[in-house]
């Protein structure tokens, strides 16, 4: 029997959601200041409107309190996380939609969802003439989503239910017993990369690209946020090809790898712990190498690239961009669409596998791939060994861990759900008349929060497909469990007793 949530449950959810929406108000101050500095008064007024609306909502939510002494449970955090990724993009559309660069409101919601889920697919029109402050806002959305708007709320506005919110966001691994300390470390890693990353990219902009200091800083900041949070938005419509610089691409590659690394791995490296036997490191290195080799072989076989240097440069950048879930590109969507056969397979598989857990990357993730491979190996070993022989089912991740039946069930369940999600989006696109290849490619790109596109995602795509991709980005980012909790909560509200 379903138990109908009490009024206190609804109050508690509204209270926490309001606090998170308050973070949006704080974040919008940055593009507002930028708009004022660049004298983009029209955009500034929209950011003021956004700040006003979100502040009022947060203030109202702050007054909605559950009864004293009420504890927040696991499913509560999941519901808040799922609702956060639905409602925050809606508020975030204010400056996007008002910019006039979207033909319908859903397009601006698509971009906001794409930003907050660190996907990087975009349906914006005439990006190259978008006001800088609005462009910055798109990238800040990626930064907020990547660093975890929930974590930001925990850090600045921490209160009850902190741990359940943290788990609801799909970051399973905890490095510290205290979630606030974990959040601080995540922001410390981000701050260190921001200082170094933005500085180096700014210097590249000034001395290699020939930009002025202000322009170089703007491009460095936006690209940093998109790269480190494995987002994929870029300030210019031609993505990373705009810079046409191998040095720039190498710098971005380092940031993409950093973004796809789990924060547990960052913590281990920072503390001089051995990571060479870590299951995620080994799996990521293996799958990246395989997909990279497959992509390079494919590019030669279809005759797309037949020279050593461009083969290394283009093949490596796209395999890395796909596997880390970033979505940057140095070729156009039309050219990417011509990558058939093994090149298509290499990039598509890399996208589907994704980066490491507890990172900003999406997809099935290296930990699950590694555990699935280990579980299958152990099963074969058990079958081959004599009856009664015991196979030690363990793996290395910050120490020796045991592979239990619950873990294996969870790994295979989530992995299968991802495959189902990839196929679902492809089926919708197929039903609307798209070819299988592009349909599958775009579906994986949306579900695994990558952002590479072969041209299906465009301002004139059918509304049904656009809504499907929005749903895929949302579900893929939250890794299913939070969505199931939200659906369960909604069903309990309607049918519960």
């Amino acid at each position: 029997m379903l138990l109908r949530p009490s009024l206190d449950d609804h109050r508690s959810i509204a209270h926490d959601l309001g606090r998170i929406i308050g973070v949006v108000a704080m974040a919008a101050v940055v593009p507002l200041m930028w708009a004022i500095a660049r004298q983009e008064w029209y955009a500034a007024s929209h950011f003021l409107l956004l700040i006003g609306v979100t502040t009022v909502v947060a203030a109202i939510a702050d007054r909605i309190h559950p009864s004293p002494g009420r504890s927040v449970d696991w499913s509560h955090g999941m519901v808040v996380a799922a609702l956060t990724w639905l409602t925050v993009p809606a508020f975030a559309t204010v400056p996007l939609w008002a910019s006039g660069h979207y033909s319908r409101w859903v397009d601006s919601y698509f971009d906001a969802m794409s930003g907050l889920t660190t996907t990087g697919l975009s349906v914006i029109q005439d990006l190259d003439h978008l006001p800088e402050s609005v462009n910055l806002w798109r990238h800040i959305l990626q930064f907020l989503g990547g660093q975890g708007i929930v974590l930001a709320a925990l850090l600045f506005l921490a209160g009850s239910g902190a741990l359940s919110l943290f788990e609801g966001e799909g970051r399973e691994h905890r490095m510290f017993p205290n979630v606030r300390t974990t959040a601080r470390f995540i922001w410390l890693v981000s701050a260190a990369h921001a200082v170094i990353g933005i500085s180096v990219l700014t210097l590249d902009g000034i001395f290699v690209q020939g930009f002025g200091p202000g322009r170089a800083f703007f491009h460095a900041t936006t690209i940093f946020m998109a790269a480190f949070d494995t987002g994929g938005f870029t300030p210019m419509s031609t993505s990373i090809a705009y810079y046409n610089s191998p040095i720039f691409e190498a710098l971005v590659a380092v940031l993409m790898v950093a973004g796809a690394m789990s924060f547990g791995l960052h913590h281990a490296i920072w503390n001089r712990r051995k990571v060479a036997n870590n299951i995620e490191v080994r799996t990521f290195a293996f799958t990246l190498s395989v997909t990279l080799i497959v992509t390079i072989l494919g590019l030669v076989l279809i005759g797309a690239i037949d020279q050593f240097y461009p083969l290394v440069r283009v093949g490596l950048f796209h395999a890395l961009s796909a596997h880390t879930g970033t979505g940057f590109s140095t070729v156009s969507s039309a050219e990417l669409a011509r990558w058939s056969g093994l090149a298509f397979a290499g990039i598509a598989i890399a996208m589907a596998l994704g980066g490491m857990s507890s990172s900003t990357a999406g997809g099935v993730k290296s930990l699950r791939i590694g555990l699935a491979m280990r579980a299958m190996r152990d099963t074969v070993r058990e079958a081959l060994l004599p009856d009664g022989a015991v196979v030690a089912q363990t793996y290395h991740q910050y120490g020796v861990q045991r592979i239990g039946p619950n873990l294996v069930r969870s790994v295979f369940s989530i992995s299968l759900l991802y495959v189902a999600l990839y196929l679902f989006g492809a089926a919708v696109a197929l039903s609307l008349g798209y070819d299988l290849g592009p349909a599958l490619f775009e579906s994986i790109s949306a579900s695994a929060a990558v952002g590479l596109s072969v041209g299906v995602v465009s301002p004139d795509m059918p509304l049904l497909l656009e809504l499907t991709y929005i749903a895929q980005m949302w579900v893929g980012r939250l890794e299913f469990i939070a969505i199931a909790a939200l659906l369960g909560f909604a069903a309990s509200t309607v049918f519960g007793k």
Partner: protein
Amino acid sequence: MREMLREAAAGIRGMAVEVAAVIGVIVIAALAAAAVLALV
């Protein structure tokens, strides 16, 4: 102050590992490209 310097050193060490990882991938890509171009 000492704590900040320690964390800064740890951060730089972490980024050095990331740079090394990218260099490793570049080497794999170069070897793969050379092998594929030689064989195909």
